């Protein structure tokens, strides 16, 4: 059960990153109700960001490993989003914090071949957090550097919860295949 003693974090201003397709019909700060995301249920609007450029890029290649060996075939754009997040987010970026909310840390970056199993705990956690906070900061499942993390923001942007003040396109990095943890086929 979550309460005020749970590991909540208020980011305030945060610069974070995400990728979009080069001809995406949506702006990079658009929230959406994708059913395939780690914390999604097909109804919930979400916006996923990573704490660094490489982490955001790794997320693309985790989903689409066929592009890893020749990164010139797909064309993705990476954006830096200047977020304003006055609302609180559950922080499960460390083993201790995950333990404090009763979730096994490894399940937050699970890699089962069955999608329903892979995301079961994360989606259950999102159901509990959404009425109490505006997002979850969680460990990256895609990038294998020591402690990369990501943030999922829930719902529509607002001045009380979260909003994107501005965004800037930055150069898309080349990432080493060994740095990406791929989703099993």
């Amino acid at each position, binding site marked *: 059960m979550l309460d005020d003693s749970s590991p909540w974090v208020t980011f305030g201003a945060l610069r974070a990153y*995400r*990728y*979009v*397709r*080069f*001809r*995406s*019909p949506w702006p990079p700060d658009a929230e*959406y109700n*994708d059913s*395939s*995301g*780690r914390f*999604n249920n097909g109804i919930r609007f*979400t916006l*996923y960001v*990573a704490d660094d450029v490489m982490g955001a890029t790794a*997320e*693309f290649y*985790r*989903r*689409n*490993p*066929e*592009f890893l060996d*020749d990164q*010139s*075939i*797909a*064309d*993705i754009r990476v954006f830096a989003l200047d977020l304003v997040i006055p609302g609180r987010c559950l922080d499960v970026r460390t083993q201790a914090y995950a333990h404090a909310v009763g979730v096994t840390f490894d399940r937050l970056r699970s890699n089962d071949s069955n999608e329903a199993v*892979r*995301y079961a705990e994360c989606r259950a956690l999102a159901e509990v957090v959404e009425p109490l906070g505006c997002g979850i900061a969680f460990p*990256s*499942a*895609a990038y294998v550097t020591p402690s990369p993390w*990501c943030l*999922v923001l829930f719902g529509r942007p607002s001045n009380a919860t979260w909003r994107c003040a501005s965004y800037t396109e930055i150069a898309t990095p080349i990432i080493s295949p060994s740095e990406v943890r791929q*989703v099993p*086929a």
Partner: protein
Amino acid sequence: MTAVLDPPVDLLEDHPADRLPDRTQVPKVSKIDDKPVRTAPTRRVPPTGITGDQVAKAMRKLRHTNPATQQRVHTLRLVMAGFEGLTFEEAALVLGVQPKRLARWLHETDSIPRAKDSVLADLHEMLRLLHQLVPLSNTGRWLRLHVPALNGTPLEALIAGRIGDVLRVTQRYAESSFV
């Protein structure tokens, strides 16, 4: 020696044009019910010199005025334009048709069967989604790329008729939430 015709023919007196109806005459209208007077239907005789093949070709052209047929040709041309980097023969394999027949479809000298509607629609959607991520100029490279979810290349899957599987891969490209 002078030829004698029996009976003698006077071309000026019995010219066939004299037997044609006078086009200046309007149809007679009944005074009772104002309905036009019925006349015997004119027998349709194909003009001499036109072959059955030409009639069939004209009928095919006529079918092409059908909006659904036009849409099929339009979609096929979009799909062919999207297959940059594929040979014509490879495109024919993907569409499950002989290259010569594909050429006839594109030149509208043969109609595209209605049974191809679903394949054309799926290929069109697949290419639309693909080209939001992969530039048109890289289409051929992508079609020959090993995709783990397909256990092979998209080209192999398309030729094997697994268009649905390839479409699902391109639908996944549209999703950008973290997993």
